Protein backbone atom coordinates (compact mmCIF):
# COMPACT_ATOMS: atom_id res chain seq x y z
CA UNK A 1 0.00 0.00 0.00
CA UNK A 2 1.44 3.31 -1.02
CA UNK A 3 -0.71 5.12 1.57
CA UNK A 4 1.54 4.01 4.41
CA UNK A 5 4.68 5.15 2.62
CA UNK A 6 3.48 8.64 1.87
CA UNK A 7 5.43 11.38 3.60
CA UNK A 8 3.71 12.84 6.65
CA UNK A 9 2.37 16.29 5.92
CA UNK A 10 1.90 17.09 9.59
CA UNK A 11 2.85 15.62 12.93
CA UNK A 12 -0.71 15.93 14.21
CA UNK A 13 -2.81 12.82 14.62
CA UNK A 14 -5.86 14.63 13.30
CA UNK A 15 -5.60 17.75 11.22
CA UNK A 16 -8.54 19.75 9.88
CA UNK A 17 -7.88 22.85 7.82
CA UNK A 18 -10.50 25.24 6.42
CA UNK A 19 -13.26 22.63 6.35
CA UNK A 20 -16.61 23.87 5.08
CA UNK A 21 -19.85 21.93 4.72
CA UNK A 22 -23.22 23.21 3.70
CA UNK A 23 -26.58 21.50 3.52
CA UNK A 24 -29.03 23.11 1.12
CA UNK A 25 -27.41 26.50 1.60
CA UNK A 26 -27.13 26.18 5.38
CA UNK A 27 -23.45 26.42 6.35
CA UNK A 28 -22.91 23.80 9.04
CA UNK A 29 -19.14 24.27 9.02
CA UNK A 30 -17.34 27.43 7.86
CA UNK A 31 -13.58 27.09 7.57
CA UNK A 32 -13.14 24.90 10.62
CA UNK A 33 -9.49 24.26 11.55
CA UNK A 34 -8.33 22.01 14.32
CA UNK A 35 -5.24 19.95 15.15
CA UNK A 36 -5.03 17.11 17.64
CA UNK A 37 -1.66 15.82 18.81
CA UNK A 38 -1.01 12.10 19.29
CA UNK A 39 -2.09 11.00 22.78
CA UNK A 40 -4.10 14.14 23.40
CA UNK A 41 -7.60 14.28 24.84
CA UNK A 42 -9.67 17.22 23.70
CA UNK A 43 -13.11 18.42 24.70
CA UNK A 44 -15.25 20.20 22.12
CA UNK A 45 -18.02 22.41 23.42
CA UNK A 46 -20.39 24.78 21.74
CA UNK A 47 -24.06 25.73 21.61
CA UNK A 48 -26.57 23.74 19.57
CA UNK A 49 -25.96 24.05 15.85
CA UNK A 50 -22.29 24.94 16.33
CA UNK A 51 -21.30 22.09 14.01
CA UNK A 52 -20.01 19.56 16.53
CA UNK A 53 -21.79 16.55 15.11
CA UNK A 54 -21.14 17.63 11.52
CA UNK A 55 -17.44 17.78 12.38
CA UNK A 56 -17.64 14.16 13.61
CA UNK A 57 -19.45 13.20 10.40
CA UNK A 58 -16.68 14.75 8.30
CA UNK A 59 -13.91 12.99 10.23
CA UNK A 60 -15.60 9.58 10.02
CA UNK A 61 -16.47 9.82 6.33
CA UNK A 62 -20.22 10.12 6.69
CA UNK A 63 -20.25 13.62 5.20
CA UNK A 64 -17.96 14.90 2.45
CA UNK A 65 -16.74 18.46 3.03
CA UNK A 66 -17.28 21.01 0.25
CA UNK A 67 -13.78 22.33 0.80
CA UNK A 68 -10.87 21.96 3.18
CA UNK A 69 -8.41 19.25 4.17
CA UNK A 70 -8.83 16.47 6.69
CA UNK A 71 -5.73 14.39 7.42
CA UNK A 72 -5.28 11.50 9.81
CA UNK A 73 -1.75 10.67 10.98
CA UNK A 74 -0.53 13.29 8.57
CA UNK A 75 -0.90 11.09 5.49
CA UNK A 76 -4.42 9.69 5.16
CA UNK A 77 -6.75 12.06 3.37
CA UNK A 78 -10.03 11.29 5.11
CA UNK A 79 -12.09 13.20 2.56
CA UNK A 80 -11.36 10.44 0.03
CA UNK A 81 -12.23 7.45 2.22
CA UNK A 82 -15.53 5.95 3.30
CA UNK A 83 -16.73 4.99 6.80
CA UNK A 84 -15.37 1.45 6.78
CA UNK A 85 -11.93 2.50 5.48
CA UNK A 86 -11.64 5.25 8.08
CA UNK A 87 -12.68 2.85 10.83
CA UNK A 88 -10.01 0.42 9.61
CA UNK A 89 -7.40 3.19 9.86
CA UNK A 90 -8.19 3.42 13.56
CA UNK A 91 -10.88 6.02 14.06
CA UNK A 92 -13.70 4.90 16.35
CA UNK A 93 -16.92 6.77 16.94
CA UNK A 94 -19.57 6.81 19.63
CA UNK A 95 -22.90 8.29 18.62
CA UNK A 96 -24.86 10.91 20.49
CA UNK A 97 -27.78 8.52 20.98
CA UNK A 98 -26.41 5.26 22.35
CA UNK A 99 -26.34 2.84 19.43
CA UNK A 100 -25.72 -0.75 20.40
CA UNK A 101 -26.97 -3.93 18.77
CA UNK A 102 -30.07 -4.50 20.86
CA UNK A 103 -30.74 -8.06 19.72
CA UNK A 104 -27.24 -9.24 20.54
CA UNK A 105 -25.83 -10.06 23.96
CA UNK A 106 -23.42 -7.63 25.56
CA UNK A 107 -20.58 -10.06 24.84
CA UNK A 108 -21.55 -10.36 21.15
CA UNK A 109 -21.70 -6.57 20.83
CA UNK A 110 -18.09 -6.41 21.99
CA UNK A 111 -17.11 -9.39 19.86
CA UNK A 112 -18.39 -7.65 16.73
CA UNK A 113 -16.46 -4.52 17.68
CA UNK A 114 -13.24 -6.33 18.65
CA UNK A 115 -10.30 -5.70 16.34
CA UNK A 116 -10.22 -8.61 13.88
CA UNK A 117 -10.31 -9.16 10.11
CA UNK A 118 -13.51 -7.63 8.76
CA UNK A 119 -13.93 -9.46 5.45
CA UNK A 120 -16.97 -11.64 4.76
CA UNK A 121 -14.73 -14.67 4.34
CA UNK A 122 -12.96 -14.14 7.65
CA UNK A 123 -16.14 -13.72 9.67
CA UNK A 124 -17.94 -16.56 7.90
CA UNK A 125 -15.26 -19.19 8.47
CA UNK A 126 -13.04 -17.69 11.13
CA UNK A 127 -15.33 -17.69 14.13
CA UNK A 128 -14.15 -15.99 17.30
CA UNK A 129 -10.42 -16.24 17.92
CA UNK A 130 -9.09 -16.60 21.47
CA UNK A 131 -7.58 -13.13 21.22
CA UNK A 132 -11.02 -11.64 20.61
CA UNK A 133 -12.53 -13.42 23.64
CA UNK A 134 -9.70 -12.00 25.75
CA UNK A 135 -10.55 -8.53 24.44
CA UNK A 136 -14.22 -9.07 25.32
CA UNK A 137 -13.34 -10.17 28.88
CA UNK A 138 -11.00 -7.25 29.37
CA UNK A 139 -13.53 -4.67 28.16
CA UNK A 140 -16.33 -6.18 30.23
CA UNK A 141 -14.19 -5.54 33.30
CA UNK A 142 -13.22 -1.99 32.31
CA UNK A 143 -16.82 -1.00 31.57
CA UNK A 144 -18.20 -2.80 34.67
CA UNK A 145 -20.55 -4.87 32.54
CA UNK A 146 -19.17 -8.27 33.63
CA UNK A 147 -22.49 -9.30 35.21
CA UNK A 148 -24.41 -8.40 32.07
CA UNK A 149 -22.32 -10.53 29.72
CA UNK A 150 -25.10 -12.76 28.38
CA UNK A 151 -27.84 -10.16 28.63
CA UNK A 152 -29.35 -8.70 25.47
CA UNK A 153 -28.05 -5.18 24.97
CA UNK A 154 -31.60 -3.93 24.41
CA UNK A 155 -32.35 -4.70 28.05
CA UNK A 156 -29.57 -2.52 29.47
CA UNK A 157 -30.22 0.80 31.21
CA UNK A 158 -29.40 4.00 29.35
CA UNK A 159 -26.14 4.50 31.23
CA UNK A 160 -25.07 0.90 30.65
CA UNK A 161 -25.74 1.26 26.95
CA UNK A 162 -23.48 4.31 26.88
CA UNK A 163 -20.73 2.34 28.60
CA UNK A 164 -21.24 -0.61 26.32
CA UNK A 165 -20.82 1.66 23.34
CA UNK A 166 -17.66 3.16 24.81
CA UNK A 167 -16.55 -0.44 25.44
CA UNK A 168 -17.20 -1.28 21.79
CA UNK A 169 -14.99 1.65 20.83
CA UNK A 170 -12.23 0.32 23.05
CA UNK A 171 -12.61 -3.19 21.63
CA UNK A 172 -11.96 -1.73 18.18
CA UNK A 173 -8.63 -0.55 19.59
CA UNK A 174 -8.65 2.67 17.58
CA UNK A 175 -5.90 5.26 17.60
CA UNK A 176 -8.48 8.02 17.88
CA UNK A 177 -11.82 7.88 19.68
CA UNK A 178 -14.56 10.34 18.84
CA UNK A 179 -17.10 10.43 21.64
CA UNK A 180 -20.31 12.36 21.09
CA UNK A 181 -22.13 13.45 24.30
CA UNK A 182 -21.22 10.43 26.42
CA UNK A 183 -23.05 11.60 29.54
CA UNK A 184 -26.31 12.86 28.03
CA UNK A 185 -29.15 11.52 30.14
CA UNK A 186 -26.87 10.07 32.80
CA UNK A 187 -27.20 10.42 36.56
CA UNK A 188 -24.48 12.37 38.42
CA UNK A 189 -22.93 9.16 39.72
CA UNK A 190 -22.86 7.71 36.21
CA UNK A 191 -21.42 10.94 34.84
CA UNK A 192 -18.56 10.84 37.34
CA UNK A 193 -17.92 7.17 36.56
CA UNK A 194 -17.88 7.99 32.83
CA UNK A 195 -15.36 10.79 33.31
CA UNK A 196 -13.12 8.37 35.16
CA UNK A 197 -13.54 5.79 32.40
CA UNK A 198 -12.62 8.32 29.70
CA UNK A 199 -9.56 9.54 31.61
CA UNK A 200 -8.46 5.93 31.87
CA UNK A 201 -8.95 5.45 28.14
CA UNK A 202 -7.08 8.66 27.37
CA UNK A 203 -3.93 7.23 28.91
CA UNK A 204 -3.43 4.98 25.89
CA UNK A 205 -5.59 6.63 23.20
CA UNK A 206 -6.23 10.01 21.64
CA UNK A 207 -9.77 11.13 22.39
CA UNK A 208 -12.11 13.85 21.16
CA UNK A 209 -15.13 14.37 23.40
CA UNK A 210 -18.09 16.48 22.39
CA UNK A 211 -20.11 17.50 25.41
CA UNK A 212 -22.63 20.04 26.70
CA UNK A 213 -22.17 19.21 30.37
CA UNK A 214 -19.69 21.79 31.76
CA UNK A 215 -19.22 19.96 35.07
CA UNK A 216 -18.21 16.91 33.12
CA UNK A 217 -15.78 18.85 30.94
CA UNK A 218 -14.24 20.36 34.08
CA UNK A 219 -13.93 16.82 35.49
CA UNK A 220 -11.99 15.74 32.42
CA UNK A 221 -9.52 18.59 32.91
CA UNK A 222 -8.28 18.81 29.33
CA UNK A 223 -7.81 21.43 26.61
CA UNK A 224 -11.12 22.75 25.32
CA UNK A 225 -12.12 23.92 21.86
CA UNK A 226 -15.21 26.10 21.59
CA UNK A 227 -17.13 25.88 18.33
CA UNK A 228 -19.58 28.50 17.19
CA UNK A 229 -21.46 28.67 13.90
CA UNK A 230 -19.19 26.16 12.25
CA UNK A 231 -15.77 27.47 13.19
CA UNK A 232 -13.44 27.65 16.19
CA UNK A 233 -14.22 30.51 18.52
CA UNK A 234 -11.68 29.87 21.25
CA UNK A 235 -9.23 27.26 22.42
CA UNK A 236 -7.44 26.65 25.73
CA UNK A 237 -8.10 25.42 29.26
CA UNK A 238 -11.70 25.55 30.46
CA UNK A 239 -10.86 28.49 32.74
CA UNK A 240 -9.27 30.41 29.87
CA UNK A 241 -12.14 29.92 27.48
CA UNK A 242 -14.78 30.63 30.13
CA UNK A 243 -13.08 33.99 30.69
CA UNK A 244 -13.17 34.79 26.96
CA UNK A 245 -15.60 37.63 26.23
CA UNK A 246 -16.85 36.15 22.97
CA UNK A 247 -17.49 32.75 24.55
CA UNK A 248 -19.51 34.38 27.32
CA UNK A 249 -21.48 36.28 24.72
CA UNK A 250 -22.25 33.13 22.72
CA UNK A 251 -23.26 31.13 25.74
CA UNK A 252 -25.02 33.76 27.78
CA UNK A 253 -25.81 36.54 25.37
CA UNK A 254 -28.78 34.93 23.72
Amino acid sequence: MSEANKPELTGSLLYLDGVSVSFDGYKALRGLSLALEPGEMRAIIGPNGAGKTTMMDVITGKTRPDEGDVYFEGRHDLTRLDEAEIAELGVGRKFQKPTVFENHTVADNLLLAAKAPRSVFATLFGGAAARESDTVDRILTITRLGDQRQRLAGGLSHGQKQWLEIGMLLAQDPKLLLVDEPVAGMTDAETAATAELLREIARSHSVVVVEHDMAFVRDLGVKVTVLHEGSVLAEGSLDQVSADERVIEVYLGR
Partner: protein
Amino acid sequence: MKTPLLRLDRLGVAFLIVTIGAAALAPVLALVVPRDSAFAMPPYVVALLGKYMCYAILALALDLVWGYCGILSLGHGAFFALGGYAMGMYLMRQIGARGVYANPVLPDFMVFLNWKELPVAWWGFHSFAYASLMVMLVPGVLAFAFGWFAFRSRVTGVYLSIITQALTYALKLAFFRNDFGFGGNNGLTDFKDIVGFNVQSDATRAALFSLSALALALSYLIGRAIVVSKYGKAVIAIRDAESRVRFLGYRVENYKLFVFVVSAVMAGVAGALYVPQVGIINPSEFDPANSIEAVIWVAVGGRGTLVGAALGAVAVNFAKTYFTGAFPEYWLYALGGLFVLVTLFLPKGLVGLLGLRRRAAKPAPPAAASLAQQEEGAR
Protein backbone atom coordinates in the same frame (compact mmCIF):
# COMPACT_ATOMS: atom_id res chain seq x y z
CA MET B 1 -18.96 -25.73 20.10
CA LYS B 2 -17.21 -24.50 17.00
CA THR B 3 -19.01 -26.74 14.51
CA PRO B 4 -22.19 -25.08 13.33
CA LEU B 5 -23.92 -28.49 13.24
CA LEU B 6 -23.62 -28.81 16.99
CA ARG B 7 -25.19 -25.43 17.61
CA LEU B 8 -28.66 -26.52 16.55
CA ASP B 9 -31.45 -25.67 18.94
CA ARG B 10 -34.29 -28.08 19.70
CA LEU B 11 -36.52 -26.54 17.08
CA GLY B 12 -33.80 -27.06 14.47
CA VAL B 13 -33.27 -30.69 15.41
CA ALA B 14 -37.01 -31.31 15.26
CA PHE B 15 -37.12 -29.63 11.86
CA LEU B 16 -34.33 -31.83 10.49
CA ILE B 17 -35.98 -34.99 11.85
CA VAL B 18 -39.28 -34.07 10.18
CA THR B 19 -37.81 -33.14 6.80
CA ILE B 20 -35.34 -36.01 6.54
CA GLY B 21 -37.94 -38.40 7.97
CA ALA B 22 -40.47 -37.28 5.36
CA ALA B 23 -37.88 -37.74 2.62
CA ALA B 24 -37.29 -41.33 3.76
CA LEU B 25 -40.90 -42.23 4.47
CA ALA B 26 -42.73 -40.73 1.49
CA PRO B 27 -41.42 -43.18 -1.16
CA VAL B 28 -42.42 -46.11 1.07
CA LEU B 29 -45.92 -44.76 1.66
CA ALA B 30 -46.38 -43.80 -1.97
CA LEU B 31 -44.91 -46.87 -3.66
CA VAL B 32 -44.65 -49.86 -1.31
CA VAL B 33 -47.75 -49.58 0.90
CA PRO B 34 -50.79 -51.00 -0.96
CA ARG B 35 -53.05 -48.37 -2.50
CA ASP B 36 -56.09 -49.32 -0.42
CA SER B 37 -54.22 -49.08 2.90
CA ALA B 38 -55.02 -46.15 5.20
CA PHE B 39 -51.32 -45.22 5.20
CA ALA B 40 -50.92 -45.09 1.43
CA MET B 41 -50.00 -41.69 0.00
CA PRO B 42 -51.95 -40.98 -3.19
CA PRO B 43 -49.88 -39.48 -6.04
CA TYR B 44 -51.68 -36.12 -5.86
CA VAL B 45 -50.65 -35.75 -2.21
CA VAL B 46 -47.02 -36.51 -3.11
CA ALA B 47 -47.12 -33.83 -5.80
CA LEU B 48 -48.80 -31.34 -3.47
CA LEU B 49 -46.36 -31.87 -0.61
CA GLY B 50 -43.45 -31.71 -3.04
CA LYS B 51 -44.69 -28.29 -4.12
CA TYR B 52 -44.93 -27.18 -0.49
CA MET B 53 -41.33 -28.25 0.10
CA CYS B 54 -40.18 -26.00 -2.77
CA TYR B 55 -42.18 -23.09 -1.37
CA ALA B 56 -40.63 -23.76 2.03
CA ILE B 57 -37.12 -23.47 0.52
CA LEU B 58 -38.11 -20.18 -1.12
CA ALA B 59 -39.47 -18.91 2.21
CA LEU B 60 -36.32 -19.95 4.03
CA ALA B 61 -34.19 -18.15 1.43
CA LEU B 62 -36.32 -15.03 1.82
CA ASP B 63 -36.08 -15.20 5.60
CA LEU B 64 -32.30 -15.22 5.32
CA VAL B 65 -32.31 -11.78 3.66
CA TRP B 66 -35.41 -10.28 5.25
CA GLY B 67 -35.50 -11.80 8.72
CA TYR B 68 -31.77 -11.60 9.37
CA CYS B 69 -30.46 -8.79 7.16
CA GLY B 70 -33.54 -6.59 6.95
CA ILE B 71 -33.60 -6.60 3.14
CA LEU B 72 -37.29 -6.86 2.30
CA SER B 73 -37.10 -8.39 -1.15
CA LEU B 74 -40.43 -8.23 -2.96
CA GLY B 75 -38.90 -9.93 -5.98
CA HIS B 76 -37.59 -13.22 -4.70
CA GLY B 77 -40.04 -15.04 -6.94
CA ALA B 78 -37.82 -13.91 -9.84
CA PHE B 79 -34.90 -16.04 -8.63
CA PHE B 80 -37.28 -18.96 -8.05
CA ALA B 81 -38.67 -18.59 -11.57
CA LEU B 82 -35.20 -18.28 -13.17
CA GLY B 83 -34.12 -21.53 -11.51
CA GLY B 84 -37.38 -23.01 -12.74
CA TYR B 85 -36.78 -21.84 -16.31
CA ALA B 86 -33.27 -23.32 -16.31
CA MET B 87 -34.71 -26.68 -15.29
CA GLY B 88 -37.59 -26.26 -17.76
CA MET B 89 -35.11 -25.71 -20.60
CA TYR B 90 -33.36 -28.96 -19.72
CA LEU B 91 -36.70 -30.78 -19.65
CA MET B 92 -37.66 -29.26 -23.02
CA ARG B 93 -34.44 -30.46 -24.63
CA GLN B 94 -35.09 -33.94 -23.22
CA ILE B 95 -38.34 -34.17 -25.21
CA GLY B 96 -36.27 -34.36 -28.39
CA ALA B 97 -38.07 -35.84 -31.39
CA ARG B 98 -41.09 -36.83 -29.28
CA GLY B 99 -42.59 -33.33 -29.69
CA VAL B 100 -45.57 -32.55 -31.94
CA TYR B 101 -43.26 -31.39 -34.73
CA ALA B 102 -40.75 -34.19 -34.06
CA ASN B 103 -37.77 -31.88 -34.40
CA PRO B 104 -34.85 -33.61 -32.65
CA VAL B 105 -33.20 -30.35 -31.57
CA LEU B 106 -35.71 -27.51 -31.55
CA PRO B 107 -38.51 -27.47 -28.96
CA ASP B 108 -42.00 -27.25 -30.46
CA PHE B 109 -42.54 -23.55 -29.85
CA MET B 110 -39.41 -22.70 -31.85
CA VAL B 111 -40.57 -24.79 -34.80
CA PHE B 112 -43.95 -23.10 -34.53
CA LEU B 113 -42.26 -19.68 -34.62
CA ASN B 114 -40.35 -20.82 -37.71
CA TRP B 115 -36.94 -20.63 -36.07
CA LYS B 116 -34.21 -22.56 -37.84
CA GLU B 117 -31.51 -22.69 -35.21
CA LEU B 118 -31.31 -23.18 -31.48
CA PRO B 119 -30.68 -19.79 -29.77
CA VAL B 120 -27.34 -19.48 -27.97
CA ALA B 121 -29.07 -19.24 -24.59
CA TRP B 122 -30.35 -22.78 -25.09
CA TRP B 123 -26.99 -24.32 -25.91
CA GLY B 124 -25.79 -26.88 -23.44
CA PHE B 125 -29.18 -27.43 -21.84
CA HIS B 126 -29.36 -31.00 -23.13
CA SER B 127 -26.85 -31.77 -20.34
CA PHE B 128 -28.30 -32.18 -16.85
CA ALA B 129 -25.04 -31.13 -15.24
CA TYR B 130 -24.94 -27.89 -17.27
CA ALA B 131 -28.60 -27.17 -16.51
CA SER B 132 -28.03 -27.78 -12.79
CA LEU B 133 -25.14 -25.35 -12.87
CA MET B 134 -27.32 -22.75 -14.60
CA VAL B 135 -30.08 -23.31 -12.02
CA MET B 136 -27.71 -21.83 -9.45
CA LEU B 137 -25.58 -19.58 -11.64
CA VAL B 138 -28.30 -17.53 -13.35
CA PRO B 139 -30.14 -16.42 -10.17
CA GLY B 140 -26.79 -16.03 -8.42
CA VAL B 141 -25.29 -13.79 -11.11
CA LEU B 142 -28.44 -11.70 -11.38
CA ALA B 143 -28.54 -11.25 -7.60
CA PHE B 144 -24.86 -10.34 -7.62
CA ALA B 145 -25.27 -7.72 -10.34
CA PHE B 146 -28.43 -6.30 -8.76
CA GLY B 147 -27.00 -6.30 -5.26
CA TRP B 148 -23.67 -4.86 -6.38
CA PHE B 149 -25.32 -1.69 -7.60
CA ALA B 150 -28.14 -1.46 -5.07
CA PHE B 151 -26.06 -2.04 -1.92
CA ARG B 152 -23.11 0.06 -3.12
CA SER B 153 -25.48 2.96 -3.78
CA ARG B 154 -26.92 2.37 -0.30
CA VAL B 155 -30.44 1.86 -1.49
CA THR B 156 -32.36 0.56 1.52
CA GLY B 157 -35.83 0.16 2.96
CA VAL B 158 -38.91 0.63 0.82
CA TYR B 159 -36.84 1.96 -2.09
CA LEU B 160 -34.99 -1.32 -2.32
CA SER B 161 -38.24 -3.26 -1.99
CA ILE B 162 -39.71 -1.28 -4.88
CA ILE B 163 -36.70 -1.99 -7.11
CA THR B 164 -36.87 -5.72 -6.37
CA GLN B 165 -40.54 -5.58 -7.32
CA ALA B 166 -39.67 -3.79 -10.54
CA LEU B 167 -36.99 -6.40 -11.27
CA THR B 168 -39.41 -9.31 -11.17
CA TYR B 169 -42.03 -7.35 -13.13
CA ALA B 170 -39.52 -6.46 -15.83
CA LEU B 171 -38.49 -10.10 -16.13
CA LYS B 172 -42.13 -11.12 -16.38
CA LEU B 173 -42.67 -8.73 -19.31
CA ALA B 174 -39.48 -9.94 -21.00
CA PHE B 175 -40.39 -13.60 -20.66
CA PHE B 176 -43.87 -12.89 -22.03
CA ARG B 177 -42.37 -11.89 -25.39
CA ASN B 178 -42.10 -14.69 -27.94
CA ASP B 179 -38.89 -13.31 -29.42
CA PHE B 180 -37.21 -13.36 -26.00
CA GLY B 181 -36.83 -17.06 -26.77
CA PHE B 182 -38.26 -18.86 -23.75
CA GLY B 183 -41.69 -19.88 -24.98
CA GLY B 184 -43.46 -16.55 -24.43
CA ASN B 185 -46.88 -16.58 -22.82
CA ASN B 186 -47.19 -20.37 -22.81
CA GLY B 187 -43.84 -20.96 -21.17
CA LEU B 188 -42.33 -24.41 -21.17
CA THR B 189 -44.40 -27.55 -20.66
CA ASP B 190 -45.22 -31.08 -21.94
CA PHE B 191 -42.13 -32.45 -20.24
CA LYS B 192 -41.40 -36.12 -20.83
CA ASP B 193 -38.46 -37.23 -18.74
CA ILE B 194 -35.78 -36.14 -16.34
CA VAL B 195 -32.38 -37.90 -16.31
CA GLY B 196 -34.04 -40.79 -18.14
CA PHE B 197 -37.05 -41.22 -15.81
CA ASN B 198 -40.62 -40.41 -16.79
CA VAL B 199 -41.57 -37.17 -14.92
CA GLN B 200 -45.19 -38.36 -14.69
CA SER B 201 -44.47 -41.72 -13.03
CA ASP B 202 -45.27 -42.24 -9.34
CA ALA B 203 -41.72 -43.34 -8.59
CA THR B 204 -40.21 -40.17 -10.11
CA ARG B 205 -42.70 -37.99 -8.24
CA ALA B 206 -41.86 -39.69 -4.96
CA ALA B 207 -38.14 -39.24 -5.67
CA LEU B 208 -38.66 -35.56 -6.50
CA PHE B 209 -40.56 -35.08 -3.26
CA SER B 210 -37.75 -36.72 -1.28
CA LEU B 211 -35.15 -34.60 -3.05
CA SER B 212 -37.12 -31.45 -2.28
CA ALA B 213 -37.43 -32.39 1.40
CA LEU B 214 -33.69 -33.10 1.54
CA ALA B 215 -32.95 -29.82 -0.23
CA LEU B 216 -35.06 -28.09 2.41
CA ALA B 217 -33.08 -29.76 5.20
CA LEU B 218 -29.80 -28.81 3.50
CA SER B 219 -30.96 -25.21 2.97
CA TYR B 220 -31.78 -25.05 6.66
CA LEU B 221 -28.34 -26.33 7.62
CA ILE B 222 -26.62 -23.83 5.32
CA GLY B 223 -28.82 -20.99 6.57
CA ARG B 224 -28.26 -21.95 10.19
CA ALA B 225 -24.49 -22.21 9.73
CA ILE B 226 -24.54 -18.71 8.22
CA VAL B 227 -26.67 -17.06 10.90
CA VAL B 228 -24.83 -18.51 13.91
CA SER B 229 -21.40 -17.56 12.52
CA LYS B 230 -19.76 -14.26 13.34
CA TYR B 231 -20.76 -13.21 9.83
CA GLY B 232 -24.39 -13.90 10.79
CA LYS B 233 -24.04 -11.79 13.90
CA ALA B 234 -22.74 -8.93 11.78
CA VAL B 235 -25.67 -9.37 9.40
CA ILE B 236 -28.19 -9.14 12.27
CA ALA B 237 -26.31 -6.07 13.49
CA ILE B 238 -26.69 -4.53 10.02
CA ARG B 239 -30.43 -5.16 10.21
CA ASP B 240 -30.66 -3.37 13.58
CA ALA B 241 -28.13 -0.52 13.21
CA GLU B 242 -26.57 -0.36 9.77
CA SER B 243 -24.47 2.78 10.16
CA ARG B 244 -23.06 1.56 13.49
CA VAL B 245 -21.72 -1.51 11.70
CA ARG B 246 -20.14 0.72 9.07
CA PHE B 247 -18.39 2.80 11.70
CA LEU B 248 -17.03 -0.41 13.19
CA GLY B 249 -15.20 -0.92 9.90
CA TYR B 250 -17.37 -3.56 8.24
CA ARG B 251 -18.08 -3.30 4.51
CA VAL B 252 -21.84 -3.45 4.83
CA GLU B 253 -22.38 -3.71 1.07
CA ASN B 254 -20.30 -6.90 0.84
CA TYR B 255 -22.09 -8.42 3.80
CA LYS B 256 -25.46 -7.76 2.22
CA LEU B 257 -24.31 -8.94 -1.18
CA PHE B 258 -23.14 -12.33 0.10
CA VAL B 259 -26.36 -13.21 1.91
CA PHE B 260 -28.44 -11.89 -1.00
CA VAL B 261 -26.61 -14.10 -3.51
CA VAL B 262 -26.78 -17.21 -1.29
CA SER B 263 -30.49 -16.59 -0.86
CA ALA B 264 -31.05 -16.14 -4.61
CA VAL B 265 -29.22 -19.40 -5.38
CA MET B 266 -31.39 -21.21 -2.81
CA ALA B 267 -34.51 -19.76 -4.39
CA GLY B 268 -33.26 -20.90 -7.81
CA VAL B 269 -32.79 -24.47 -6.59
CA ALA B 270 -36.32 -24.37 -5.13
CA GLY B 271 -37.67 -23.29 -8.52
CA ALA B 272 -35.75 -26.04 -10.31
CA LEU B 273 -37.24 -28.69 -8.03
CA TYR B 274 -40.69 -27.15 -8.42
CA VAL B 275 -40.93 -27.21 -12.22
CA PRO B 276 -40.71 -31.00 -12.85
CA GLN B 277 -43.29 -31.54 -10.08
CA VAL B 278 -45.87 -29.12 -11.44
CA GLY B 279 -45.03 -29.85 -15.08
CA ILE B 280 -44.96 -26.25 -16.33
CA ILE B 281 -43.10 -22.96 -16.04
CA ASN B 282 -44.45 -19.76 -17.57
CA PRO B 283 -43.99 -16.00 -17.07
CA SER B 284 -46.76 -15.83 -14.45
CA GLU B 285 -44.21 -17.27 -12.00
CA PHE B 286 -42.52 -13.85 -12.17
CA ASP B 287 -45.72 -12.17 -11.05
CA PRO B 288 -45.01 -9.66 -8.25
CA ALA B 289 -47.97 -11.10 -6.33
CA ASN B 290 -46.08 -14.41 -5.97
CA SER B 291 -43.14 -12.68 -4.36
CA ILE B 292 -45.41 -10.80 -2.00
CA GLU B 293 -47.16 -14.02 -1.06
CA ALA B 294 -43.78 -15.48 -0.12
CA VAL B 295 -43.24 -12.52 2.20
CA ILE B 296 -46.55 -13.35 3.89
CA TRP B 297 -45.44 -16.97 4.40
CA VAL B 298 -42.35 -15.75 6.22
CA ALA B 299 -44.29 -13.24 8.32
CA VAL B 300 -46.88 -15.86 9.28
CA GLY B 301 -44.26 -18.43 10.21
CA GLY B 302 -42.04 -15.98 12.06
CA ARG B 303 -39.24 -13.96 10.49
CA GLY B 304 -35.68 -14.42 11.61
CA THR B 305 -36.16 -18.05 12.61
CA LEU B 306 -35.62 -20.05 9.36
CA VAL B 307 -37.79 -22.92 10.68
CA GLY B 308 -40.71 -20.51 11.03
CA ALA B 309 -40.39 -19.40 7.41
CA ALA B 310 -40.59 -22.99 6.16
CA LEU B 311 -43.45 -23.71 8.53
CA GLY B 312 -45.29 -20.59 7.37
CA ALA B 313 -44.91 -21.56 3.71
CA VAL B 314 -46.41 -25.01 4.33
CA ALA B 315 -49.18 -23.74 6.62
CA VAL B 316 -50.30 -20.91 4.34
CA ASN B 317 -50.20 -23.09 1.24
CA PHE B 318 -52.10 -25.84 2.98
CA ALA B 319 -54.74 -23.26 3.88
CA LYS B 320 -54.66 -22.00 0.30
CA THR B 321 -55.22 -25.50 -1.11
CA TYR B 322 -58.14 -25.99 1.25
CA PHE B 323 -59.69 -22.56 0.78
CA THR B 324 -59.37 -22.38 -2.97
CA GLY B 325 -61.14 -25.76 -3.07
CA ALA B 326 -63.86 -25.01 -0.52
CA PHE B 327 -64.49 -21.27 -0.99
CA PRO B 328 -62.49 -20.15 -4.01
CA GLU B 329 -63.68 -16.55 -4.00
CA TYR B 330 -62.66 -15.90 -0.39
CA TRP B 331 -59.03 -17.02 -0.47
CA LEU B 332 -57.50 -13.59 -1.04
CA TYR B 333 -59.58 -12.14 1.80
CA ALA B 334 -58.46 -14.96 4.04
CA LEU B 335 -54.81 -14.36 3.09
CA GLY B 336 -55.11 -10.63 3.73
CA GLY B 337 -56.90 -11.25 7.02
CA LEU B 338 -54.23 -13.73 8.07
CA PHE B 339 -51.48 -11.20 7.37
CA VAL B 340 -53.25 -8.52 9.41
CA LEU B 341 -53.91 -10.88 12.31
CA VAL B 342 -50.34 -12.13 12.41
CA THR B 343 -48.93 -8.60 12.25
CA LEU B 344 -51.20 -7.43 15.07
CA PHE B 345 -51.17 -10.39 17.42
CA LEU B 346 -48.24 -12.60 16.51
CA PRO B 347 -45.29 -10.36 15.64
CA LYS B 348 -43.04 -13.41 15.95
CA GLY B 349 -45.34 -15.62 13.89
CA LEU B 350 -46.26 -19.24 14.53
CA VAL B 351 -42.81 -19.99 15.93
CA GLY B 352 -43.24 -17.14 18.40
CA LEU B 353 -46.32 -18.96 19.64
CA LEU B 354 -44.19 -22.02 20.46
CA GLY B 355 -41.73 -19.81 22.32
CA LEU B 356 -44.51 -18.24 24.39
CA ARG B 357 -45.73 -21.63 25.56
CA ARG B 358 -42.25 -22.73 26.54
CA ARG B 359 -41.60 -19.50 28.43
CA ALA B 360 -44.88 -19.82 30.30
CA ALA B 361 -43.90 -23.32 31.42
CA LYS B 362 -40.55 -22.21 32.86
CA PRO B 363 -40.39 -19.63 35.67
CA ALA B 364 -38.61 -16.51 34.48
CA PRO B 365 -35.11 -16.07 35.92
CA PRO B 366 -34.87 -13.15 38.36
CA ALA B 367 -33.65 -10.12 36.43
CA ALA B 368 -30.15 -9.09 37.45
CA ALA B 369 -30.39 -5.71 39.11
CA SER B 370 -28.22 -3.36 37.11
CA LEU B 371 -25.64 -1.06 38.56
CA ALA B 372 -27.42 2.00 37.26
CA GLN B 373 -30.74 0.92 38.72
CA GLN B 374 -29.11 0.48 42.11
CA GLU B 375 -27.55 3.89 41.88
CA GLU B 376 -30.80 5.44 40.85
CA GLY B 377 -32.55 3.69 43.71
CA ALA B 378 -30.01 5.01 46.17
CA ARG B 379 -30.53 8.60 45.14
